[in-house]
């Protein structure tokens, strides 16, 4: 396995402003100041991932996994910090980048055109995409009538067939049936062997354990742990067990502690 860095993140921070109402938002846009609260979806995420790595992103809801997935795939920009990618990233999320009004075929064509393929190249790819998606006659129907599984199948089929260097999978596998999930995992394994990097957001610990060699654990926007799956997953599981056994008051106390601990790390400007 090569050791070339594929993704290098340096103190990546993402801040959103929470406006109480539309008036506050307009005030901020026009005057550049407001009473909006700063919400940090990510704080100072620093890590490196090498080519051929498969990094599992774990954490509870609202921990910033999807925000980080968006940043790694280059869709959204960090508020501060930098992220460097050696290669073309591609994001797969449930129904991401699909236009509900268009049919499956048209979606393949639009996506292909948008990433810069010619009509001829798209026609060459179409067959393998349709074959991989395996949704039958639905490929000629508008995407709005698809089930969430079909959307995920089509999205996945398009993304893996356009040959990305960095693949970011945001819970897209959680809606597929086991046969399709297996097909995707096989495909991803062949990607890894070709030295491509994969980021894998999932709540399924067995999937992460089987498939990822590294795991990043996010908690309230901060990186709690990043290392090999053998190192991080047991710790995460222990934490989940503890958390499930906590009483409501304890959970609240825990959350307050973490958030307080994290908020003083940031100098607000």
């Amino acid at each position, binding site marked *: 396995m090569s050791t070339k860095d594929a993704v290098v993140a340096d103190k990546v921070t993402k801040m959103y402003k929470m406006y109480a109402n539309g008036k506050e938002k307009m005030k901020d846009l026009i005057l550049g100041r407001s009473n909006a609260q700063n919400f940090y979806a990510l704080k100072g995420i620093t890590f490196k991932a090498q080519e051929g790595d498969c990094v599992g992103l774990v954490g509870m809801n609202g921990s910033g996994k999807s925000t980080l997935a*968006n940043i790694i795939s280059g869709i*959204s920009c960090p508020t501060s*910090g930098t992220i460097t990618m050696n290669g073309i990233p591609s994001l797969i999320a449930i129904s991401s*980048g699909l236009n509900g009004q268009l049919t499956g075929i048209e979606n393949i064509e639009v996506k292909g055109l948008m990433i810069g393929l010619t009509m001829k190249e798209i026609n060459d790819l179409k067959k393998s995409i349709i074959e991989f998606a395996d949704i039958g006659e639905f490929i000629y129907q508008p995407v709005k009538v698809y089930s969430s599984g079909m959307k995920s199948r089509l999205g996945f089929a398009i993304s893996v067939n356009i040959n990305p260097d960095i693949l970011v999978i945001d819970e897209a596998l959680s809606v597929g049936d086991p046969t399709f999930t297996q097909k995707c995992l096989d495909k991803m394994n062949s990607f890894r062997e070709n030295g491509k990097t994969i980021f894998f957001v999932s709540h399924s610990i067995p999937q992460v354990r089987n498939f990822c060699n590294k795991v990043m654990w996010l908690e309230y926007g*901060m990186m*709690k742990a990043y*290392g090999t799956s053998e190192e991080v997953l*047991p710790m995460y599981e222990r934490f989940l067990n503890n958390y499930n056994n906590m009483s409501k008051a304890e959970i609240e106390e825990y959350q307050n502690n973490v958030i307080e*601990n994290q908020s003083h790390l940031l100098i607000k*400007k």
Partner: protein
Amino acid sequence: MSAFEIKTEIALSEINKITISVDKQNEKDKYAYYIYKNDKIIEKISYTSNNVNVYWVTEPGEYKVKVFVKNQQGEKNSAFTEPIDFEGLKPIICSAQENESSFRWLKNIIIIFREIWQNRMRMIRLSLYDYSLANKDSYLGRLWSILNPLIQIGTYWFVFGIGIRNNKPVGNHPFLPWMLCGLIAWFFFSYSITHGASSIYSKSGTALKLKYPVSTIPMGSILVGFYNHLVVLCILVIMLFFFGYYPNLYWLNLLYYFLYEFVFLTGFAMITSVLTMIARDFQKLLSSLIRLWFYLTPILWNMDNLPNFVQFILRLNPALYIVTGFRDSLIYKNMFFIHTNKILFFWTLNVILIVIGCNLQMKFRNRFIDML
């Protein structure tokens, strides 16, 4: 007295990761760890076969680990690692990265234009595809791009030509071809103004997620309108034939007006598409104002009888420049370069629009995804 010795190592790496490693003496040994912070146990890790363990710390303090080793015979021993100081995570100063430099506004324009040039084939292919998709959800499909203008032309001709003017000619020219030249130019103009404003928003679902160069979207939307315009122009040419206007060299002036219009609409769309992303109200406002703009432009009525200063003000309207340009080329047989003042004024306006447009695009384009 310990049955065997324990050698441990502790190290802090990767900002906040503590690695504890124990010298492995026997394959079957089991290890347990107690993590201490300031001499208080904060976590216990029960017996495993891992002789290397990692722990991530967030709060500052002095950390040490008590390592327990259990061998196959059930003998136990424990030892403390060296204490290790963790100063806490470094504060992060949040600031948006905006590199201020002189001539930033000029560099922005170069960046946008370079991007459009590099992605021109992508933009053209996508605009052709968008054009082929338009109207596909109706039974008559493509036919609507002809039917819709024909119905509008019929309505305006009936109300303004027959109803108000009694079919009186404009100067030496019949009303219908005179109105058509303006109206068909206006169709493209108004289509591009409204669709240009919503261009980025309507594409945001796919374009932003696929990292399609957003800077080409406003121009792409103008291209889609332009293909339609070329089709509708056929109606104009056929009608002009009926009234005895045949193609001549003056018609080539249209190429100049196409160019002017294309630059104007692109610049305008660059600005309005960003404003629409910031506040969706802007597009609603624009689609109401476009009605007013239509009647303030002398397309259906002749302004020759108005006082001079009113005419002067009305002439500052770019839409009128194009409408007059169409009439000059197709009916009046005037070359575009006889109006030097107008060329100067309207191209200066174009440059201003492009400068503002490119800078707005650069300022906001990284934030579009958060504006949805």
